[in-house]
């Protein structure tokens, strides 16, 4: 079983294109201004096992390369 990963946004890159909120709607919603905001209340949400594939897809598809997955400390 792989370690828990967290989804991080590089805010200097993100400009709210919205792909991640479509691909990963369970974990990310759009905030008032269209930027991804975690639905879990965490700033960098932990990715549940069943959403790992979708999370990796979202990271790969972000046109601004603003999303990353990092091992939870």
């Amino acid at each position, binding site marked *: 079983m792989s370690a828990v990963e967290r989804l991080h*946004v*590089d*805010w*200097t*890159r*993100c400009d709210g294109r919205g792909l991640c909120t479509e691909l990963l709607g369970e974990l990310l919603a759009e905030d*008032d*201004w269209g930027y991804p*905001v975690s639905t879990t209340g965490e*700033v960098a949400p932990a990715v549940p096992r069943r959403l790992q594939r979708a999370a990796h897809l979202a990271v790969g598809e972000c046109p601004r390369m603003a999303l990353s997955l990092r091992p939870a400390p």
Partner: protein
Amino acid sequence: MTALSFPSAPAGPPPALLATTTSRRRLMACAAPDLASHLALVGPLPDAARLPGVRVAELAAEAGLTGRGGAAFPTGRKLASLGEAVRSGRPPVVVANGAEGEPASSKDHALLAHAPHLVLDGLALAVRAVTGAVGSSAGGAEAHLYAPAEVVRTLAPLLVERAAAGVDEVAVRSTAAPDRFVAGQSSAVASAVAGGPALPRTPWPPPRLVGAGTAQRPGRPTLVMNVETLAHLGLLARLGASWFRSVGTDDEPGTRLVTVSGAVRTPRVAEVAGGAPLADVLSAAGGASEQLSALLVGGYHGGWVPFGERAPHTASLPHSGSALAPWGADPGAGVVIALPSRACGLRAGADVARYLAAQTAGQCGPCVNGLPTLAEHLEALADAGAAVPSRQHSREGLARRVHELHRVAGLVDGRGACHHPSGSVRLVRSTLMTFADDVQAHLGGRCLAREER
């Protein structure tokens, strides 16, 4: 902003006196315009044989020295944290950060004007700590002084003086810091000294591991330390950890520089014992000049502590992180602003929030959009209590704004590359909490401060 300075004082005490005194005047007793008078006052730094790099970090840890730039990170741990990155063979960069973007703070400016050699001694020690930790020579390491352009200009001859005297293992270069609030955030500093823009970067990986790289030049592990922290290190290396701890409290050992302004008799930079009662911090600036309602502690990213007739108990509250936490404040970079009772706390909070919104670096969406929204709601709430409001406000509309302030604060908190959005949210939340009675009055078109006059 008016530049405050140390009050004029006779030449400081000789080193022997400095070592034995429990006076709160430590950094301020070390005013010396040139290297010769500095060395006459405090003596030379212990050499690397007597004080190897690894001991520098240990000494800072034993003394309980913490960062004086605002984050209060333990200095010993910070100095030791570069070890691994440096062991991988990349020479480190150490920066003395005197950018002081906070408009209500002048202590770094005053320190660099009066005791610059003490700061540069501390920088030399930090270089020794991060290079000595691997037992190598300082080969390849860089030392930088990062400060506003006029300070860099003034100190240029001092750097020449030190190079000629051979007091530093690594020659110090200087970089001018632009005059903006976020220019002193550590990732912005790392970027600036690497030749990039003085803008915050995403905090991962942190600058202490990778620095700020460019396509042409990969990053190097970069340690950013506040100039006051370095000055304390410069004295600590000469006088020891128990001397350092002989003033202050267990959780706030040593002294710290504060910039006290607002409704006080003599606004100025002063040196106070760590954990001193808030009343003593005010006394260092001549005490309140009129009846007060609150203190803004920790600067524009800090929090309001009720003070005066409204809250007689806070006069004895220690100026420490743990004592101030319930008010959403901490000593930060030592800023204390006294708010008179006749001034509306909501208006003051709104003015600060508007300033902070204008100081966004413009990089991160939640900060760019959220801070102006917060400022607008807080301004409307402040306006509702004005003698002649600039527009009509309904109680329902204002109550909705209060709700929005809390909701949008939650959207902004933590969602940026640097501390600016979170620090700004802290100020807004503290304004709503400390001035909760004022909020209730404003909802009904009244203002407690106006009724005081």
